[in-house]
Each structure stands twice: as C-alpha cells, then as structure tokens.
C-alpha cells in the first residue's frame, strides 16, 4: 500500500491543503455547512497515535524539481561522486527584451535617426536625456550626436547603396550643310614703290588735262583729226613688222652693238692723244677712226658733207657723181658717229646731189642742190624719202648743176630761204612761201667784157659759171662767189647787177671759197689748178699760195683756230696747215684713203670734236682724229684775230 504511504505524507500535505482548504473551507464552511465528512472506503486507517503525530514543515527555497542525486565522474578519484551543489534555480518565465543600451553604437545610431525624423522631438529627447542623466559625460555625449547627425546622414549606407540612373532618349543627329558658291578670288600683289605712286599721280593729272581739253569747243575738230590719224596709225601698225614696234629699243641696241664692235675706235676717238707728237717737231698726224659706207652708194661719189649744227655727231653726206657722162641717181644719207654701220636717214633721188646745207636754226631741214639744176628741201622729221619741197622747171630751177646751197636767215616774213649757185651763172634766192619754193634771182654772174654780138644786134651776155660761194659770217650781205673761170667775185645781196670786187684767183675752176671764221677779212680758196690761196678781201693779191701737187678738192677752216685749215687733194692726201706754226708747209700731209685712184672730194671739220670727215669718190666717208699738234689753239680769242695779222704781215713778203 504504497499509495497509502505516499498518501501519508501527501496526506499531510493534503491535509495541509485540506486544512487550508478546510480553513478556507472553514471560512467557507458557512457555505458548506452541510458538508459531511465522508470517509472513503480506501482511506487508511491510522491509529490515533499516529494521528496525533506532529509533523513539522519547513519552507525552503529549494526547487523540488531539482535533481538531488546528480553524479559526476571525477577523474581525480576515479569514481563517481555526487555533486555537492545543485542549481536550485527554477525559471518559470523568460522573455527576451528589445531594450538596447543607449551608449552603445546601435543606440546612438537609432538616436540619431530619431532626431532627424522628428526635429522638435529631438530637442525634447535631448532634454529628456539630459534630465535623465546625472553625469556630465552623458550630457556631453548628447551634444555630440546633433552635429554628427547631418554628417552621418550624408554618408551612404554602404550596405544599402542604391544607384539610380535614368536614360534619356537621344535625338538622332542630322547633318545639314549649306554650300555657297565661293566668291571669286583673285590673287593680287604689288609693291608700292615711289615710282608707282608717281605714275599714278601723273596719270591722274593727264586725265584731268584731257577732261579740260574736251571741254574746249575746238575739241570737235581735233577729235576728228585724231580719229583719222588714229585709224591711219593703227592700220600701219597692223601691217608693220614686230621689229618696228621695238624701233626705239632697236635703235639704242644697234648703237650699243656698234659701240662694242668698234669699241677701240670709240676709245681712240674719245681719249687717244698721240703722244709721239711731242717728238715730231710740230708735225701732226691724222688718226683714222671710223669709215662710213653704205652699199647703195658704192658707185657714187661723195659730193657734199656737212655737220649738223645741233647734233654734233650727226653729219649729212650727199652722193652724186662729178662725171658728166655717168650721171645717175643720187642719195642723201645722214650718219652719226655713234653708229658707223648704218645711216640714220636715207633719202634717194633721181638726180645726183651736188651740194647740201643744214639749217642752223632748224636742224631737221636740209637744203639740197641737184645735178639737174633743181633744189629741194628735205625734212628729216618726216619719214618719207622724198623731199618736202622741190623746185621744178616752172619754178625757176637752174639749168645747170647747182654747186652750192646755203641757208640764210629767215626773211622779214619769217619764211625760210636759202641761196644757190649754179653753173648757169645765176645766184638764186629761194624762199619757202606757203609750202612752195619761190625763187628770186639775186645776181647774174655776167662776165665782164664778154658781151657778144648776137643776131639782130642783140647783146648777149655770157654768164660765168658759179661753182662755189660763201657768205660772210658777220656782214650779212657780203658774199664771195667762185667761178669756173677761176675768178672770185665779191658780191652784195643788195646789188643785183654789179659786183663789189673781182679777184683773179685761179687758172681753173674755183672749187671752194671760205671766209675765215675768226678773221673777218681773210678768206681761202682752192682750185683744180693745184693751189690753195689765202686772201685778204681788201687786197687783190693773195697773201699765201700753197701748191699741193694735185688738184685740190676742198678746203676748210678749222673751227677752233684761225690759223689752221685743211685741204684735200685728188691723190688721196689730206693736208693740214697751221699758219702760226709753219707758213710754208703743211704740218701734216697724210694719205687718207686706202686705194689709189680714190679721189678725195670734200673735207669738213667737226665744230666740237677734234675730228674731220673726208669724203671720197668711192662713196666712203672716213672720220679722222686730229693729233694734238694739229689742234693748237691760241691762248686767247683776241690773239686769234691778231695772229693772222701777224702772219699776214710777215708772210706777205714770202710770196
């Protein structure tokens, strides 16, 4: 009867309980008054004694459920030993709380979060925190979180980072282009030199002048003329050669080439002075320089040469023939020393030219006398090869060759005029009046004492044949005429029928007479009778006579000295005399032309340069330089005049 045993104690407890319950029951007995104690049938029956036993009860904190017999193996004693202490804790209820320590990290973080979410409540929380805490440190900690909070907020949560992106729709690109036509470009470069500026100004000036001219009423006619001229010139140009367009340049070039070719001659001309003249005892030489020839004049003889008074290097040569039987055409050529190869101007004529003269004031006008008795004036400025004005049978030409022409001063109406002398015995003055040659007989060379009895009682006068004349340099009306009979007449323009004087000069035709350029009284004459004679026009007999062993073709005074003159003979020699040095002999006698049978026909001194030109009958013109001995000039011009006087006085005995 375990149960009984067990129940025994239990009963105790039960009794306790019952006690309690009975107590309670007692309390409640009132309630359960009617309760009767009922003994169960299986209740233990206890003796009285046993019923009166007291059992003591103790309240302890021992866990009744705690095991009291836990044994553990002890390796020390190698036996099982019961544990002395057994845990008596009995957990009746456990609940995990979610409270965090506010000082910890998590607490601070949450605090911060809470403060950002609720701004005002933060302060309250702060205050609450401040109030809640007694330590200053805690208060200080509370102050720190607020400034940290905004920083902390910005930090991205690295574990919870969200990246957000959005893509916009890009519009497709489209190219649009527009191309315009490029503006026409032109490269231009220039330099602004002084002369370009000058040219521009000059052009401007010309334009202004032209516009002014156009305003004038004359312009109408002038324009028409210009147009006509313009047409003519253009038509000419279109026909002409390329070379003629560069005609000026070609001319210069030609001269340069010639200068190069004849360089040594040019140098001689300019600079060479014959040093050996010192040793030659006053003799001089003629140095040959250039030789001028033109193939068309090879058959012709030089009949006249004359230097141009303005252009000292230009000279005119007339070609014709002295031979009565062989008369052909004639030519007039103008050469310049700058170009020995080719003449500058060429004029041809039907009849041989016998003489020529260039006007002093108008150096482009050349008066020419022909073999057929005509005279003409050539104008160098005009390009034609025909004379500008020509006499004719109607206008009173000579009936015999014209031997000499000479320009005179313009007459009172400012017309040009010149004189001509011819074998027909007339000295004619030609005047250019309104583009026509008008002639006036000045003198008829009547031979004294030769009036013949013609039929029916007419008195015919034979006329002398004039072959040369020369006008006095100072006395305008005075002139000398040499004739074929050998006489020299001194005439005046004023007296048309009578001579002032007659000189029985030579035995044959007088080829040349010439006044001395310095000494007004002295003149020289030469003739085919081999002599050269020097006269004083007041004395009938010559002062000097020189016999040159050959017919003298021409004689000329030098322009630089009153005592020097040159004479050329048909044997090809040139003689130069200087009366102040040697009165009886030439100081230079020199063969000038190459071949024999080449007669020299004319000689002329250049007015400026120390050269002479000599023409021969083969159509050649030679230029020679005078050596220093031939060029002695008296020191003073007064002496020039005086010297011949001295010479004359001394020399007149010599004859």
């Amino acid at each position, binding site marked *: 009867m375990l149960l009984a045993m067990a129940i025994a104690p239990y009963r105790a407890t039960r009794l306790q309980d019952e006690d309690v319950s009975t107590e309670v029951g007692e309390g409640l007995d009132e309630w359960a008054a009617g309760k009767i104690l009922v003994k169960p049938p299986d209740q233990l029956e206890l003796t009285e004694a046993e019923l009166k036993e007291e059992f003591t009860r103790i309240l302890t904190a021992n866990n009744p459920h705690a095991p009291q017999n836990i044994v553990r193996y002890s390796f020390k004693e190698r036996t099982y030993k019961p544990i002395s202490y057994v845990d008596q804790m009995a957990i009746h209820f456990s609940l995990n709380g979610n409270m965090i320590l506010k000082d910890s990290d998590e607490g601070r973080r949450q605090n911060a979060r809470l403060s950002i979410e609720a701004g005002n409540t933060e302060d309250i929380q702060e205050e609450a925190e401040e109030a809640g805490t007694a330590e200053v440190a805690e208060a200080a900690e509370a102050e720190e979180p607020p400034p940290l909070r905004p920083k902390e907020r910005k930090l991205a949560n690295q574990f919870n980072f969200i990246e957000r992106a959005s893509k916009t729709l890009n519009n497709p690109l489209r190219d649009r282009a527009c191309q315009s036509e490029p503006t026409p470009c032109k490269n231009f470069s220039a*330099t602004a*030199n*002084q*002369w370009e*500026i*000058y*040219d521009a100004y000059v052009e401007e000036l010309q334009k202004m002048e032209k516009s002014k001219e156009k305003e004038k009423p004359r312009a109408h006619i002038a324009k028409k003329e210009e147009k006509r001229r313009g047409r003519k010139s253009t038509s000419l140009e279109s026909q*002409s*050669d*390329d*070379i*003629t*367009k*560069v*005609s*000026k*340049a*070609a*001319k*210069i*070039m*030609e001269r*340069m*080439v010639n200068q*190069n*070719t004849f*360089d040594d001659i040019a140098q001689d001309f300019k600079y060479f002075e014959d040093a050996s003249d010192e040793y030659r005892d006053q003799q001089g030489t003629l140095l040959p320089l250039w030789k001028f020839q033109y193939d068309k004049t090879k058959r012709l003889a030089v009949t006249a040469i004359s230097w141009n008074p303005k252009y000292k290097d230009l000279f005119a040569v007339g070609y014709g023939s002295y031979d009565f039987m062989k008369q052909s055409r004639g030519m007039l050529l103008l050469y310049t020393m700058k170009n020995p*190869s*080719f*003449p500058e101007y*060429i004029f041809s004529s039907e009849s041989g030219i016998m003489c020529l003269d260039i006007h002093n004031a108008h150096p482009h006008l050349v008066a020419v006398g022909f073999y057929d008795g005509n005279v003409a004036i050539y104008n160098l400025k005009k*390009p034609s090869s025909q004379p500008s004005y020509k006499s004719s049978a109607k206008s009173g030409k000579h009936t015999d060759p014209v031997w000499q022409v000479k320009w005179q001063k313009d007459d009172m109406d400012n017309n040009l005029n010149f004189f001509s002398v011819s074998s027909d015995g007339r000295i004619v003055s030609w005047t250019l009046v309104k583009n026509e040659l008008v002639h006036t007989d000045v003198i008829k060379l009547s031979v004294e004492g030769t009036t013949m009895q013609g039929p029916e009682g007419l008195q015919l006068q034979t006329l002398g044949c004039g072959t040369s004349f020369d006008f006095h340099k100072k006395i305008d009306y005075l002139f000398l005429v040499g004739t074929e009979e050998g006489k020299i007449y001194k005439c005046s323009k004023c007296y048309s029928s009578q001579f002032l004087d007659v000189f029985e000069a030579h035995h044959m035709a007088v080829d040349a007479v010439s006044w001395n350029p310095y000494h007004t009284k002295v003149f020289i004459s030469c003739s085919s009778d081999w002599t050269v004679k020097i006269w004083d026009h007041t004395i009938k007999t010559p002062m000097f006579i020189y016999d040159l062993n050959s017919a003298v073709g021409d004689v000329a005074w030098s322009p630089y000295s009153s005592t020097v003159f040159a004479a050329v003979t048909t044997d090809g020699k040139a003689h130069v005399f200087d009366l102040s040095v040697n009165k009886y002999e030439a100081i230079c006698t020199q063969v000038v032309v190459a071949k024999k049978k080449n007669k020299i026909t004319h000689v002329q001194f250049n007015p400026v340069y120390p050269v002479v030109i000599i023409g021969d009958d083969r159509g050649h013109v030679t230029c020679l330089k005078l050596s220093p001995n031939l060029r002695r000039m008296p020191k003073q011009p007064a002496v020039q005049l005086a010297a011949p006087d001295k010479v004359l006085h001394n020399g007149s005995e010599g004859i």
Partner: protein
Amino acid sequence: GAGKSRALMQIFSEEIMEGLITFGIPIRTTFDNSTTVQYAGLLQQLTMKARSTVRDIDPRNDLTFLRIRSKKHEIMVAPENEYLLIVIQKPCE
C-alpha cells in the same frame, strides 16, 4: 621703219650677234627654243628689277638700256613699252 628692220637684220646676220625680241614670251629669235626661253625669263625679271631701281631713285627717270658684260660675251637689253629686245654679242678682241 623699213630701214630700221633692215639694220636689225643686218645685226642679226653678223656672226658675232644673236638676238631675240620678247613680249613676255619670245616673239622673234635667232636662238634655239630652250635658250630663248631661258634668256627671256631671266632677263625679264632682271630688267624689271633694274627699272624699279632706277625709278625708285627718281620717278621721272626710266631705264633705257641694260648691259651685262661677262667673260664670254655681253648681254644687252633694251626695254620698250612692253617689249624687250635682247642681244648677245661676243667680244671682238
């Protein structure tokens, strides 16, 4: 006019001479083609330079002639309007 051209041809025909006329480009020449072109081009420039020099010093002045003397020959240039006349001459010594 006619006389001048005759004279020029005379120059050209002599042995010592050769020449050409140019107008920017050669018009008339006695040289062979390549030499002509060379001479024309080079001398054109030189002439322009010479003319510029002369006129720069005095604008009223103008170039009339240009001569270049070398060991072998002498080159002569004469400008006129737009033309250039060039002559090469060998020295006759």
